[in-house]
């Protein structure tokens, strides 16, 4: 398999690689956003717990 030929995609390089790049971007965004959504909620919950502990002691 010729690497140059592979990247050229039979003349469709621009279209194919843009599509795959965009897909990677969207998947990464979803990964990041979902992670962040969960992590933020966890941090907030932890902080609330600490505050509750402080108040009770």
């Amino acid at each position, binding site marked *: 398999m010729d690497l140059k030929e592979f990247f050229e*995609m*039979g003349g*469709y390089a621009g279209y*194919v690689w843009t599509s795959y790049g965009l897909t990677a971007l*969207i998947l990464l965004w979803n990964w990041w956003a979902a*992670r962040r959504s*969960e*992590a933020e909620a966890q941090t907030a*919950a932890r902080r609330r717990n600490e505050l509750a502990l402080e108040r009770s002691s």
Partner: protein
Amino acid sequence: MSWTWFHKLASPPHAYRILGSLAPWFGWASLALILLATWWGLVKAPADYQQGDGFRILYVHAPSAWMSMFTYVVMAVAAGVGLVWRIKLAHAAAAACAPIGASFTFLALATGSIWGKPMWGTWWVWDARLTSELLLLFLYLGYMALRASFDDPQRADRASAVLALVGVINVPIIHYSVNWWSTLHQPASVTKFDKPSIDLAMLIPLFLMIIGFQLYFGWAVSRRLRGEILRRERNANWLKEAA
């Protein structure tokens, strides 16, 4: 039949824990499958007899188009369950689906447009499938906008659930309306199970990619849903141990 398992599953602490242990499995499996399918689709699968290597866009376009509709159905079913049986967890799940579905819809539109340019000769045509997919994106955006405009989470849940259900009735109508209005998109190939019109060597990576996207969806929903549960249950006792 006993429904205890159901109520147990729908209880927030339980769901939180289960989703937490499921998510990594979904995550790694989807990563492996998507990478495998990408390699298979880009390298191993042969070029198409008409579209050459350009057809390889199929492997990202078709799965995202499929996921855009799949996610809407999941969202609407969750919204319906939440509305009828008043299960908060179902509402939270519907909320978690919306941004994921919207992003897949956008991806399907974008990759379709990129594919359309060399093959059809135009970036965009007002064709049936394209137009209904665009309207699906608007439905997702409307759903998220409605949800975001309420301060009270319970009202947001129930109002957006009504909208999701109205939308699910309207989606087939939209689909058929644009179908007769203008058409250039080819008919679906994979749903014809009697004799798939995609060659097997090209079909395998497509299926791998679709399963990979499904698992990825499972991962993303689990993560988002865990976040939603924590936000909604901020005053519950069980959180003190979990967090």
